[in-house]
């Protein structure tokens, strides 16, 4: 595999972010607790600069290019996800400023790890070779294990880390085994070559087993049933800004590789894998939405709800027959998903005080009277999560459902719609707490400009894309896999 020097130019944004992460990690050892805010601001700056480095070649009209012997692709598809992931990173850091600053744990390394996880996701979404994807995925996952347990003396946090680690490592083992079977059956690891040999070669049971195991490994990463058990625990136990990040960043990256591996790698075998994905999708929607019904902790409820959303998003993968429609509906849905989840978790960040207090549904009681703006914005996010117009969540869900319908998955769409009705029940419990129940005692609520700005930006976009989704739809169409 010959590497041209020009290949390096394509990964400049990733290289920059890696360097920034390393510098900040080292710098963090030298700063006092009061100066940690500086580190956070520098991390935001480096994420923004990375965004610029990505945007410059894209705006110069550079088309899709491949580098490192087909291991890395710089195309519109990866760019779409990278921008979303960077934005999620910025929002997470804004959420963390006070949250980590007030905690008894030095926060310097926190930001470095966040940047490393982001680099991992960026490489993931650009990966076009099973091994580059795997390595990037591990870079992301290893940083995440540490972040989940960052509040290491809080039992909940370290337990979340341990569970996440055990199940995550287990799932990468399964994924790796699947990759080895694919390698054994096709003799190659690059997605393009795998796809070629699937077309040319005979159908082998080894390959089908490999595809199934790769799917199982990825089901873990997107938290879809029956491999979802870690998600509610980890979302509940991790520090809230990290839960917000977990709910968005890794999911986006995992969906990106899921779609890329299955559409451009295993696409020609679609008759074998659609059934498995359909089954997982159905199970995921039911488990996530029914599980959420019983939760009292808002973070845990959002964890279950995001399992439900993973089930909806799988519908887009099933629309392999009308691939462009299915894929663009996934892109749009995930954008909406990122906005509304970041926003909803952000409000939990504002409500939360030390030691995980303020996470229960009851802690939202009477919020509408104390802070009408916050309550109104939360209603917007919850409506969007439930998929009620005029919000971005509705647009995304609508497109996914119609893609699945067009692909002939009628019963699955019907189930998804039914589960949307169920989801309204638990989302509206929070609305009820905020508006219909009188608050008892004083409401824990802190004003925090950084978080407020981030939340309002998410809210504005959620509403705007709900009313006028055309720009996003056009963008998604331009960013499909070629």
């Amino acid at each position, binding site marked *: 595999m010959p590497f041209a020097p020009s290949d390096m130019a394509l990964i400049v944004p990733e290289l920059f972010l890696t360097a920034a992460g390393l510098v900040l990690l080292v710098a963090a050892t030298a700063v006092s607790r009061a100066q940690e805010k500086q580190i956070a601001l520098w991390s935001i700056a480096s994420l923004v600069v990375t965004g610029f480095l990505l945007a410059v070649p894209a705006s110069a009209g550079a088309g899709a290019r491949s580098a490192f012997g087909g291991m890395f692709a710089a195309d519109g598809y990866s760019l779409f996800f990278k921008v979303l992931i960077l934005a999620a990173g910025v929002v997470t850091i804004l959420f963390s400023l006070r949250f980590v600053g007030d905690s008894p744990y030095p926060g310097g390394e926190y930001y470095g790890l966040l940047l490393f996880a982001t680099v991992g996701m960026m490489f993931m979404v650009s990966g076009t070779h099973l*091994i580059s994807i795997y390595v990037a995925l591990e870079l992301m996952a290893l940083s995440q294990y540490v972040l989940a347990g960052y509040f290491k003396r809080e039992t*909940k946090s370290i*337990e979340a880390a341990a569970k996440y680690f*055990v199940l995550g490592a287990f799932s990468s083992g399964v994924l790796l085994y699947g990759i080895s079977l694919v*390698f*054994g059956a096709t*003799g190659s690891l690059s997605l393009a070559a795998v796809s070629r040999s699937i077309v040319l070669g005979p159908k082998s049971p080894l390959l089908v087993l490999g595809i199934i195991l790769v799917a199982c490994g990825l089901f873990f990463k997107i938290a879809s049933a029956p491999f979802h058990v870690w998600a509610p625990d980890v979302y509940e136990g991790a520090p809230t800004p990290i839960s917000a990040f977990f709910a968005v960043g890794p999911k986006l990256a995992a969906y990106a590789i899921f779609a890329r591996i299955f559409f451009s790698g295993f696409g020609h075998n679609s008759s074998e894998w659609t059934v498995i994905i359909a089954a997982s999708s159905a199970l995921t929607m039911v488990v996530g939405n029914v599980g959420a019904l019983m939760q009292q902790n808002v973070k845990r409820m959002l964890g279950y709800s995001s399992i439900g959303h993973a089930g909806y998003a799988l519908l887009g993968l099933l629309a392999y027959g009308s691939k462009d429609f299915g894929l663009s509906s996934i892109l749009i849905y995930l954008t909406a998903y990122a906005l509304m989840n970041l926003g909803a978790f952000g409000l939990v960040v504002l409500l939360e005080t030390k030691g995980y207090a303020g996470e229960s549904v009851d802690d939202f009681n009477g919020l509408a009277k104390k802070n009408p703006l916050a309550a109104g914005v939360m209603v917007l996010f919850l409506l969007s999560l439930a998929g009620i117009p005029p919000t971005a969540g509705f647009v995304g869900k609508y497109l996914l459902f119609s893609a699945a319908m067009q692909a002939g998955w009628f019963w699955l769409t019907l189930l998804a719609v039914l589960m949307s009705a169920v989801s309204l029940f638990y989302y509206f419990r929070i609305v009820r707490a905020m508006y219909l129940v009188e608050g008892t005692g004083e409401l824990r609520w802190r004003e925090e400009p950084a978080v407020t700005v981030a939340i309002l930006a998410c809210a504005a976009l959620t509403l705007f894309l709900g009313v006028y989704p055309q720009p996003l739809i056009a963008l998604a169409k331009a960013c499909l896999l070629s």
Partner: protein
Amino acid sequence: MNPATMSAAAAAGVSVMSVAPSAYLVVGTILFAIGLAGALLKRNALSIFLSIELMMNAVNLLFLTYARMRGDAAGQMVVFFVIAIAAAEAAIGLAIFVALFRARQTVDVDKINFLKW
């Protein structure tokens, strides 16, 4: 072992016990199954972790075998990555278990139930 090396060895008068590549595949698969069973059945977090390491190494064996069977060095390259990642994973995983032990005085997954498992 490919025929070229075998005939070279035979010419040199060395007796060669040849093991079919499929045998390595069987061993790899059995090792993976043992690891999988251990990861699912063991209650001690360290044992689970060791089982997962076993799964990874079983995969390494499979990759090497396939690389040999297909004469493709990509499979060998993968093994280096996997070994490196497994080392990093061990470092992080053990650190998490140590912190867990400090917080809970146990690494038994049945007792790690502060969060609903």
